[in-house]
């Protein structure tokens, strides 16, 4: 049986990583070493292809730790994940020596169609059971731990049997998979659906977190927040990140930027800002642990 994702967590440095984008790939390859703990890549951009990009990624892997984060698994759809895709994914995560593989708690294909967007799944007991079984089967196929990310949902499909927190509790009680906690997604959902982000986040199964994502969002004229990964991280999201990390303790944290990508130097400055938040939060978490130990 494949080890749990939380057991594999130490395979990646507890620092701040960056989503690898082609816009700055050559700088990463040929420039001086960057103060970035690891790079995260979407395997779909490199799978089933030859040429420059897979070769370049292999070279990046010689300089920095890599972890894979997929986009099209469709773990929550009616149809099970595509076997051919999963088998190719297995080869790719092995090629990149990713310590675990993550994807999203989402529906990304239906009736043979690829949606190329993260559709929400229903928070039901049935879905929790189905997704848990699929995650454990996926880990066995890939031969390494897996994790899933809480997504942004702009609407919620019926039936609504459970809250997201209840759904996650049931899901993670049934699976060995880890939670990839996306703090910006919690924030965006809280604003769009009118709930308290801190309260929701505190009720997540934080002991199962193997990695944290943080990113920027965009506000539409209608007031709706979109999880665009196309802007700097909002100050309120950085605060929420600190709140989350005080509860998770040290974990790898990733800055995602997928649209309107600024120069690499700007992103590295944002990585440093995130790291400052991490260090403060982890010091606070460590102090709390010591205080608990003394009082015990």
């Amino acid at each position, binding site marked *: 049986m494949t080890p749990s994702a939380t057991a594999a967590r130490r395979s990646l440095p507890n620092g701040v990583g960056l989503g690898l984008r082609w816009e700055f790939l050559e700088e990463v390859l040929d420039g001086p070493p960057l103060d970035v703990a690891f790079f995260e890549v979407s395997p779909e951009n490199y799978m089933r292809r*030859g040429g420059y990009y897979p070769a370049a990624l292999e070279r990046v892997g010689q300089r920095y730790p890599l972890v894979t984060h997929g986009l099209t698994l469709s773990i929550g759809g009616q149809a099970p994940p595509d076997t051919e895709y999963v088998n190719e994914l297995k080869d790719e995560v092995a090629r990149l020596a990713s310590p675990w593989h993550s994807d999203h708690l989402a529906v990304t294909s*239906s009736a043979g*169609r690829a949606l190329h967007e993260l559709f929400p799944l*229903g928070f039901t007991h049935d879905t929790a059971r189905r997704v848990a079984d699929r995650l454990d089967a996926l880990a066995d196929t890939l031969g390494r731990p897996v994790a899933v990310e809480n997504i942004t949902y*702009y*609407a919620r499909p*019926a039936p609504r049997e459970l809250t997201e927190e209840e759904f996650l509790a049931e899901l993670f009680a049934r699976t060995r998979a880890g939670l990839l906690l996306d703090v910006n997604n919690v924030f965006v959902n809280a604003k769009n659906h009118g709930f308290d982000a801190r309260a929701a986040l505190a009720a997540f199964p934080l002991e199962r977190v193997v990695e944290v994502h943080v990113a920027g969002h965009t506000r539409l004229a209608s007031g709706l927040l979109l999880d665009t990964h196309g802007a700097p991280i909002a100050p309120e999201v950085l605060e929420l990140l600190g709140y989350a990390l005080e509860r998770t303790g040290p974990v790898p944290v990733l800055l995602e930027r997928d649209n309107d990508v600024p120069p690499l130097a700007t992103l590295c400055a944002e990585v440093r800002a995130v790291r400052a938040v991490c260090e403060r939060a982890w010091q606070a978490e460590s102090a709390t642990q010591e205080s608990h130990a003394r009082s015990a």
Partner: protein
Amino acid sequence: MHAALERALVELVHGPPLGPAELAKLAERHALDAESRAGLAAELEQWLVYRTLVRNTLKNALALAIPRTLARLGALFDESFERFLAERGPRTHYLRDVTSELLDFVAPLWRADARVPPWSLDLARHEALEIVVASLADPPAAHELGALDVERGLRFVEAARVVRYDYAVHRLPDSTADRSTPAREPTALFVYRDGEHDVRYLELTPLAADLLEQLLAGVSLKTALVEAAARHAEEPARVLPSVAELLADLAARGALLGAAPDALASRATKLDDAAIGREKGPP
């Protein structure tokens, strides 16, 4: 999410735009239960956000692959794109492959539509080729490659294709603002990825195109030469020098690696004695 609701949401997002009246019909078509109907109606505006997100993602991928086709066709392209989404939709996990899926779908539609300029499909295919060839699989582990031998096939780089167009779209300027019309001129190109991972294009004569197509399919050099020459009413011996020059050029470019290993040579078509005799004749 129930299966019926999942299907209904896909139609809502990929299908034609709809308002509250059409929403009731969609719910009916998918036999949605009362809770799902109420949820859809209550959050219709939020569900429609997914229409925008899906279109933005796919359009961005298409704009990267076929920018000049999009710019030239404008609203006509949007119409085809919407029809593709509604009637077929992407099937691939890989965004880079959506362009090929869309072009396969629209090809018969564009050919039958007088509003679409007749060179459009050639231009779109030519633009899309860049990413296709740039992404083709790398060669398998090195084989024992020999010197060229007419009895054997040839081994090319894996990322190599012969493509044919009815219009000389490869000569159009790169600018998306250009609106010049390509000449109607049967065109064949040899397209390959070089050692620096750049995609290169070579314009071929009709005989060279036939020859390289055969060679890429794995037939022996002798068969390819004889058949291509016969198709153009040429004696093999007369065209041999230019063929040798072509192959030497491809070898110098790194596109032609050498003689195919034995496994491929065994696929070569056997020639009859008469054909061999013709090839051995004087220049």
